[in-house]
């Protein structure tokens, strides 16, 4: 057992857990943040993606010890109160989801993609960058549309801040 200290969605968290605990299990089972999903559990589908120190990584392939002291953001931490994050709003408006299972991972990846490609985001780049996130419902078309739409909204939101 070890004690790890993290900041999760802006709050300090301290948990004493077995060393084999994966971040996704800490989030879901200890912190009741069940928005982060376990999809394939083999590091391929991206449903478990969260931000660790601002980078979109797979929480099912991260031991909690590896990120002791880190800043973690999950799907529960991106809205401002009742106001959805622009990426969430764009997914809703563009029908970017069907069953919704992959959506938290998609959104966390997509925010990271927009952050990294502020000015040069086109459809091809979005499709390439989303290859670590698997969706079995949508055929990706509306997901790509959502990300491109959100990229514009995030730019506007940033300019306003």
């Amino acid at each position, binding site marked *: 057992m070890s004690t790890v200290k993290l900041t999760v969605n802006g709050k300090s968290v301290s948990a004493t857990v077995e060393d*084999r605990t*994966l971040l996704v299990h800490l989030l879901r089972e200890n912190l009741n943040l069940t928005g982060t999903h376990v999809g394939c559990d083999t590091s391929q589908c*991206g449903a478990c993606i969260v931000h660790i120190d601002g980078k979109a990584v*797979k929480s099912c392939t991260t031991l909690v*010890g*590896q990120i002791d002291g880190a800043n973690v953001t999950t799907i529960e931490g991106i809205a401002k109160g009742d106001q959805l994050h622009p990426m969430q709003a764009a997914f809703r408006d563009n029908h970017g989801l069907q069953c919704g299972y992959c959506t938290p991972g998609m959104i966390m990846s997509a925010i990271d993609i927009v952050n990294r490609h502020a000015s040069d985001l086109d459809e091809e780049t979005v499709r390439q960058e989303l290859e*670590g996130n698997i969706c079995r419902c949508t055929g990706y078309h509306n997901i790509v549309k959502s990300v491109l739409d959100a990229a514009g909204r995030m730019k506007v939101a940033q300019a306003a801040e």
Partner: protein
Amino acid sequence: MYETTYHRPASIDEAAALFAKHPEAKYLAGGHTLIPVMKQRLAAPSDVIDLAKIKEMIGIEATSDALIIKAATTYYDITQSAAAKKAIPAIVYLTSVLGDPAVRYRGTIGGSIANNDPAADYPAAVLALGATIKTNTREIKGDDFFQGLFSTALEDNEIITSVSFPIPAKAGYAKMRHPASRFALTGVFVAQTKSGEVRVAATGASQNGVMRVPAIEAALKANWSAGALDGVKISADGLMSDIHGSAEYRANLIKVMAQRAVEAAG
């Protein structure tokens, strides 16, 4: 996953000392091979010793002769490195088509090379460029490093600290990506050294892991062009055959990927 004890040493010496105390330990870098394998219970190290935060193992330097990438440098940092792009753009390209963005944030060059997956990308670059692997105890020539599927010249307790790639006159990489795993169905790295030697390595093809391809080296030595490979025939003997592609298919891919790599190298 079976129980294990996690350690985060601050230095290479501390990591080696921890390994000496725990002989059933494994070193952990990005964790994108070891953790999945531990989850499947195919590996059950008593202890995992995390190398990813050791500062002396992170960074990229270029001299006029070599690009030196420290072992715990992530793929993402390699793709962002202006020094790497200038020194050997083919390495940066190879890194940009490796895994997916979330994998590239965590995976490290040292981890990939130490694991020696038969379809991993870096072994092809190490072999084709004639790189040198530096460890905490010695230097190992790329030619002597890879010893078959998932096996290398490394001792269990040995830590790769950096990889030094000689800067070539020309180099290029091309791969047929497996669309789900993004591993190389076959990938070929071609290089022409500054002294005029041609070295070509293929990954994802042979049953014994990464290999040199003498027939392509000879053809490119005579004439460095994609067209020079038109008549080259690669034998399917000893190549992998699985649901993704037959040995004959891979044999043809070696030629086609080599042609694309030469075109990329210019």
